[in-house]
């Protein structure tokens, strides 16, 4: 056990007991709860039970989230300000009209400075894409040069990209209504939108662990996956025009979608993170393992991080699959139909269940588990993307 002693000298972040409440935290609670319940009070009569439930749930989780992870506070503020600018600009042109049609929307997006270059959903998403890719290079640069400040720049880029990504989604939500009342929906309804969600969520999970483990040296690895997602997104946009807002097909017009999809993406994001930590592990392992003057965290820390990510992913994936089953029960008349998408979710789940068992009950650690985590990402990617491309089924997320 003596090897673990080194591990314990690695800073692991503060334990909750060491936390001191700042006045900012109080302000945060007041602001979030105030905003959430303010919206509730203002729009109560337009909302049904589900919507009220979702709003309250979202407000409470955001409040808690920001309370325990302070960086969320700044991010939320940035997203709120940028989305606010977008709403303000649309307001300037369209007043309080709910819908104006695609033509009018495009015209305004083409001429307004803010919308054109910054906060229309398309621009925000382009910023997000550029910043994530930039962050990837910057992280690797920091890893090579061992320059702390370059690492800080990389983190800042990821935060900024994430803020743009979330802003892009928020504005897209408004834009869907601007195109047509009937088109309005939360943008988690097709492959294009969920790819943005995937990038953002993966980045957030990564940032969380970056803070906890106080190391930026894994950033480049994780950002590789996100850059790949961005690459897909760009191809999908420019080759397939997937960024155009489409109305929902009837089966997707459901409350379940709004919780099922994000839950799924916490799962996918966490699995992707685990796989990239696995890659870092394997590289370090091949290069001789732990040394005196390491750039990457100790192998044992990587191993632990991999476990944490997979556990997080597994938890959310379990919930997401159950929600999916409940939704299917409502939409298709059966909670389980062995539809390919559903079945692949099960395959992913079983795969990680096996991984967890081997680790926890057989005590497997190290390279084999890292390999398995990497393979797990391929399985996950197939469930996420491959099924839509190669298999036909009931899921209406569309083919490429």
């Amino acid at each position: 056990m003596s090897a673990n002693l080194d591990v314990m000298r690695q800073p692991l972040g503060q334990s909750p007991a060491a936390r001191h409440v700042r006045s900012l935290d109080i302000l945060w609670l007041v602001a979030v709860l105030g905003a959430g319940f303010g919206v509730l009070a203002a729009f109560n009569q337009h909302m049904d039970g589900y919507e009220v439930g979702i709003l309250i749930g979202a407000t409470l989780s955001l409040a808690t989230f920001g309370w325990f992870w302070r960086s969320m506070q700044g991010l939320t503020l940035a997203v709120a300000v940028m989305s606010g600018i977008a709403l303000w600009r649309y307001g300037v042109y369209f007043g309080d009209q709910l819908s104006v049609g695609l033509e009018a929307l495009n015209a305004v997006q083409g001429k307004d400075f803010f919308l054109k270059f910054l906060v229309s959903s398309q621009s925000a998403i382009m910023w997000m894409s550029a910043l994530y890719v930039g962050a990837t290079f910057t992280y690797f640069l920091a890893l090579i040069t061992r320059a702390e400040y370059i690492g800080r720049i990389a983190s800042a880029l990821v935060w900024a990209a994430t803020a743009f990504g979330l802003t892009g989604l928020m504005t897209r939500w408004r834009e869907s209504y601007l195109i047509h009342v009937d088109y309005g929906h939360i943008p988690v309804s097709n492959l294009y939108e969920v790819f943005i969600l995937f990038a953002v969520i993966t980045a957030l999970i990564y940032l969380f662990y970056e803070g906890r483990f106080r190391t930026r040296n894994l950033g480049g690895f994780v950002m590789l996956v996100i850059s790949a997602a961005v690459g897909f997104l760009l191809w999908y946009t420019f080759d397939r025009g997937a960024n155009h807002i489409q109305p929902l097909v009837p089966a997707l017009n459901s409350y379940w979608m709004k919780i099922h999809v994000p839950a799924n993406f916490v799962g996918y994001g966490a699995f992707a993170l685990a796989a990239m930590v696995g890659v870092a592990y394997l590289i370090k392992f091949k290069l001789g393992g732990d040394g005196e003057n390491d750039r990457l965290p100790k192998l044992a820390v990587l191993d632990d991080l991999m476990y944490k990510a997979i556990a997080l992913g597994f938890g959310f994936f379990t919930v997401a699959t159950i929600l999916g089953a409940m939704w299917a029960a409502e939409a298709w008349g059966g909670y389980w139909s062995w539809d390919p998408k559903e079945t692949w979710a099960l395959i992913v789940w079983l795969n990680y269940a096996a991984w967890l068992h081997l680790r926890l009950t057989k005590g497997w650690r190290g390279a084999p588990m890292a390999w398995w985590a990497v393979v797990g990402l391929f399985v996950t990617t197939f469930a996420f993307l491959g099924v839509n491309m190669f298999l036909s089924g009931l899921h209406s997320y569309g083919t490429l």
Partner: protein
Amino acid sequence: MAFLGSMNLAIILLVAVALASVIGTVLQQNQPYGDYLMKFGPFWFEVFRTLGLYDVYSAPWFLAILGFLVISTSACVIRNAPGMLREMRDYRLHAQEKSLRSIPGHAEWQVPVSVEAAAIEGRRTLLESGFNVRETRVAEGYLIAGRKGALQRLGYIFTHVAIVIILVGGVLDSRIWLALRELKGDLVVETRPVPVSQVPPESRVPASNPSFRGNVNIPEGQQSSVLFLNVRDGYVVQELPFAIEVKDFRIEHYINGQPKSYESDLVIHDPASPNKPVAQTISVNHPLIYKGYAIYQASFGDGGSKLALRAWQLLGQSGAVQDIQGAIFQDIPFSLGGQRYTLELNDFRLFNINPVEGEGGKVEQKNFGPSMVFRIRDAAGQAREYENYMNPVVMDGRPVFISGMREQVGAPMRYLYLPADRDNRLDTFMAYYARLHDPERVARAVQAMLEEINPEAAKLPAASESIRAMVGRFVEGGYDAIGTDLEKRVPAEQLQQAFETSVRVLQTVLGRMYVELLAERGIEAPTEQDERFLADAVTAINALALYGSPIYLQMTGFEHIQASGLQVTKSPGKAVVYFGSVLLTLGVFMLFYLHPRRAWVLVRENESGARVLFATTSHRKTIDMQQAAAQLRERLELRLSGAGGHPLAADHA
């Protein structure tokens, strides 16, 4: 039991279910057996059928794996749960000094205070760190034992019991009831496509069947008290204790024509309560639950739309038309040129939203308007499937009538585009096509052309004869026929040139005949659009050689009658599965996020005060646990040194 509850078996089973599921997704399940036969050939078709690969999830071997998973998980819980429950309650107040000392990371201090005072410090430290604490007197001192996160063990039990519950619930809702009936010989799968009234009693399942999931299409204004359950390559009829009437079916559309919602106005006629028919509108995501039966809007289809059709004869006397009335699902026999055919009207679609490349290469969704799907079957039973659009669709800037054709089920459609004329009608094309079948007109055109460009050749009957034959070949068999003919007569090295010359001559003739037609219709100055019409018509005639239908069927009118596709389920296992799911969710998060730990502080009196022995463990050997252990030890040390204590020994492992 030891083997059944073993981890190795569990992992093998998990992986086995995953792999079997992969097969089920890669090989499309429950397709018509004919498709499989075509895909795999007779030998592999039979092999795969025997293995149950066309319905993996009902295959005995798959169910056996799931069964083993239930058994193995149960065995695992039965083996582990009692110990865990006991452990959860136990504070380990009997821990011996020797065993505490063997715990890695233990530590020991000498404190110049009484045992009571030292015990209080130890106790406080544990309480402050969130432990539940018990205390006992031991020889010359106290043992304080703490534990925390004990519910994690309950998480294990929840998770694994939940798996069993979910699988059991799933079995309740599965095909097992049908399988039992089949096994007893009470049920025979029907494979003929016959009307419900002709399905024999042994292919019917009484309403008492505990669980099922079936479909039925009910045309507007009609009702049904049966469902169809697809079984392998056939189906059985499930009786319902009530009748479902579809009063009306509606599709709402978005402005771009895409469907926005499907809904049906239903009335339930239940003999148990004849005076109170239940009426409700259902839509996708909003089912009707009636007495434990759930009725979903699953799909929609045609309910026998009435069609006005015009059949343009392509074979024989081409250009002749006949107007007929038909309805979807109707078979209409006809004969042409001594051959007998059947026209089978299969489907009607009011909207067809298709992606189209618009200006600037952007893909847009466009509504192509109504279409019908039909088959034309010849006397030998061979059939081709067609999909014809009613209205001309503008493609590349000009209107065309589109007809899709495929020779085999599942093959991609290939499309024929017939140009529409200035009035957006098919008449000009058909008139032109008929003309090309008229030998005299062709002869006149050829002769006139020869006289104009080569008066010498015009005098030779052979020249005009060969050109006429070429035109005939083109009309019957397209450019291919001309090519094949040339290959027979011309040396290979001159083939290319000969073909080009032939095509040029052909086009001149075709052009002349077109101008002639236009002139007859009063068009003296052909526009660019008319010129494109000619090019498109020639392309279409070339394609018609492969069309394989003796007629071109144009839809001229319709009365749309829809059918609502309902799915009706009775699933007594659903509540069980949901309960299991809640348990699973709870269990999984408890397993991951509760961190079970124990800690002991043993205080014993000695000559210079008290000796304090501290140890802590967790069965989770994670970094967090080690860190927490170190923190706890430091905290205790801080307290004790405040009381003047100093470390005696520590095991820094």
